[in-house]
């Protein structure tokens, strides 16, 4: 599973870590994140992320 980087703030979504603070379990692929998931650092949507 690929890591994705936020174009705005540089936050890296690591699928192996997930985003537990926001209800995303470790092991969740970026593609499987809900459409309304936002960057935990700066709040932009999934469309602002690029594969690392």
């Amino acid at each position: 599973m690929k890591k994705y980087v936020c174009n705005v703030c540089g936050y890296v979504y690591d699928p192996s870590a997930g985003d537990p603070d926001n209800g995303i379990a470790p092991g969740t692929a970026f593609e499987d994140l809900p459409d309304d998931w936002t960057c935990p650092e700066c709040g932009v949507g999934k469309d602002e992320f690029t594969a690392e």
Partner: protein
Amino acid sequence: MNETQVADRVNWVGYVDWSIRDFHGYETTRGSSYNAYLIQDEKNTLIDTVKGPYADDLLRNIQRHITLDKLDYIVCNHAEPDHSGALPVVMASCPQVELICDAKCKATLERYYDIRHWKIRVVKSGDSISIGAYSLQFLETPMAHWPESMATYLPECKLLFSMDAFGQHYATSGRFDDSVPLAVVLEEAKIYYANILMCYERPVNNALDAVKSLAPEILAPSHGIIWRTQVDKILSAYADWSVCKADRKVVILYDTMWQSTAKMAHTLYETVVDSGVQCKLISIRATHITDIVTECLDAAAIAVGSPTLNQTLMPQVAAALTYLMGLKPSGKSGFAFGSYGWGKGGPEAVNEYLEKMKFNILREPLKCQYAPDEQALAACREAGGLLVKAAELVG
């Protein structure tokens, strides 16, 4: 050294805003300053500018040292208008100048200003530009506190132009930490941190690690006084604030209509104080949101009370909680409380905010109908014990 000299051939040329009291909603009771710095070297370099209306003051201050045609570079560390607002005037007054910023900053400046005729050099973290005897090293600090935020380091002086980090809204005639009372500047730095940076824990921690590795001896922020004597104190304070480190302290926030929720708040307060734990009792309607969130920064437990008005919480409580929620205080415990008449809703609506802020919720909303009787006050005393326990968990 005089009060504008930061280092050899480095001078403060900014503007002290003695009269500002409202900074995009942040109450600045002690005013502020927009700090710009002029480095005189083979390439004369201006670090940041000031708010738009004070462009002429900035130009006058620069001209105390050099004529405008001798300015070579401007570094723009942050595109927010309190630091970039004077750029259009300065760029027009100094057409030879090359503006230095990172790629995101350029894109943001483009949204604010007509930059088509500006000479711009884009830099990134790790880049360095020699300006003669001195050199400029750039350190991008994304989301501390905008995507394009950057700091600039002058290694020959061990001087970090830290942008908004370590800043304070504090108008003073002295420019340095040793020319003002330390308690006041630390208080203002804390208010600034709580209101501007609290929600950016991870980016701030990344930036702090990078700053520590530079081991700067002078921190020159873009607002307020410059740290040169107490650098360790502000770095240590930031280490605590950047993880929302709790004191053994309880905060009770409330609003009231007919004194019922106020009585509950006072009973909670007395219970906490009687147990020897520090407690702040804050009437939301009597206190500016700026101070409310500052008190929450280092609280271990926060109880929030609202009566029920039209089946929901009081609008002033909603305003305070909306502001606090955006600032994302981490690791707080607490609960909601308040009165209701016939339909319920106030304390429950408060509880929803606490859940969204991921509070460790100590109990279901504590409620009383119309006015607290002895039984309701006994429940408040019991609930106060939960706040005490949460505070006592702090080492």
